[in-house]
């Protein structure tokens, strides 16, 4: 392109009538293409095409919830409590019967493990409830009541909602935890040595 002939011909050259070679005007494009593709790959890798996903959460109105609460039968309900250290506690029914808790096996602890965790509990309860028949002779639907303690994390909360989606539980509600539940959790924690 802009090259000067620096070969020292020393003035003799002009008498010899050597023609300077005409340089080709074609430029080698290969490095240019390389650069182009390098930049393309960079932008391709930095562009995130995948977007975060969202989970729907529909909260019932407070007034509605009272009615819902009353409509839930003891036999079709499963109450799940979220405690500290990713611990999960559960009992069948709504614990409205004070004598129910007298049974030592009433209040159980588990975790979010894939096997023998809360998922199996939900499935077992769901299938057991599906065997029941209501007054009209239709299969019953399990109702899951979710109560989170103050030590629970957001992860536990999302995980348990996710379990509802995984096991296709149609009816579930998040409810404020009662003092009675807190007390049971504390007792179980001390019994199991969860700090």
């Amino acid at each position: 392109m802009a090259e000067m002939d620096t070969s020292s011909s020393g003035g003799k050259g002009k008498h010899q009538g050597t023609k300077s070679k005409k340089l080709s005007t074609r430029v080698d494009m290969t490095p240019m293409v390389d650069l182009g593709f390098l930049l393309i790959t960079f932008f391709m890798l930095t562009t995130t095409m995948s977007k975060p996903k969202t989970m729907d959460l529909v909260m019932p109105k407070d007034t509605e919830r009272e009615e819902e609460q009353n409509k839930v039968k003891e036999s079709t309900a499963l109450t799940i409590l979220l405690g500290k250290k990713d611990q999960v506690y559960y009992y069948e029914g709504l614990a409205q019967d004070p004598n129910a808790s007298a049974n030592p096996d009433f209040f159980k602890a588990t975790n979010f493990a894939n096997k023998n965790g809360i998922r199996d509990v939900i499935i077992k309860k769901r299938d057991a409830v599906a065997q029941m028949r209501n007054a009209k002779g239709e299969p019953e639907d399990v109702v899951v009541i979710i109560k989170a303690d103050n030590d629970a994390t957001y992860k536990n909360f999302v995980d348990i909602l996710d379990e509802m989606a995984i096991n296709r539980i149609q009816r579930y509600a998040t409810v404020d935890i009662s003092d009675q539940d807190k007390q049971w959790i504390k007792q179980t924690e001390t019994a199991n040595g969860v700090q």
Partner: protein
Amino acid sequence: MPKVKMPRKSTLVDMTAMCDVAFLLLTFFMLATKFKPDEPVTVVTPSSINTQLLPDSDVILLTIDKGGRVFFSMDGQSKRKKMIEDLNSQFKLGLDTKEMNNFILGASVGTDLKDLKSYLSLSAEARKKSGLEKGIPTDSSNNELSSWIEYARAAQDNNPKLKYCIKADNGTPYPVIKQILDTFKDKKIQKLNLVTNLETPPVGSAAALAQEGKPAK
């Protein structure tokens, strides 16, 4: 039969077309790439099996970090402009144009309304150091989050497509989340979206079977 000499073809390939393609793609990616504004906090969201996409527009996003600090962000510069003007006149914050522009072009904000002026006058890095990033107060005695939501809704013109998204960290304590859910409940907003990462449903579970039974969407 005289021999016909086949002229040997040069092995050089003309790279011009290749180059054109390369640069075409390059310009496309350069234009299509949107750099995200710097978020004040990094949040690791939990994963779930939900496949619904987080929409790009008409979103009010609350980001909550591990410590339970709440940050507010919203899409649309014109909407943000309207919102900050409303907040400014209503709460007599005395913001100047530069501070307002900082809000309009910036990312999430998380501070008390009374500190908003000094907060917006700082750059994103300076905010972190200033100690003003305490998050938006959500406690019942001083629930500024509800005013943020209120003004954001007004700025969005009560758009029916408006979605309320909550993006919280794995380690966020539940009481903070509950406080926010209650705030929404008080506002009669019942449909929320929790931002999660995608994971596949466990093999053999009801959701997985349902997915296999249906053609993939």
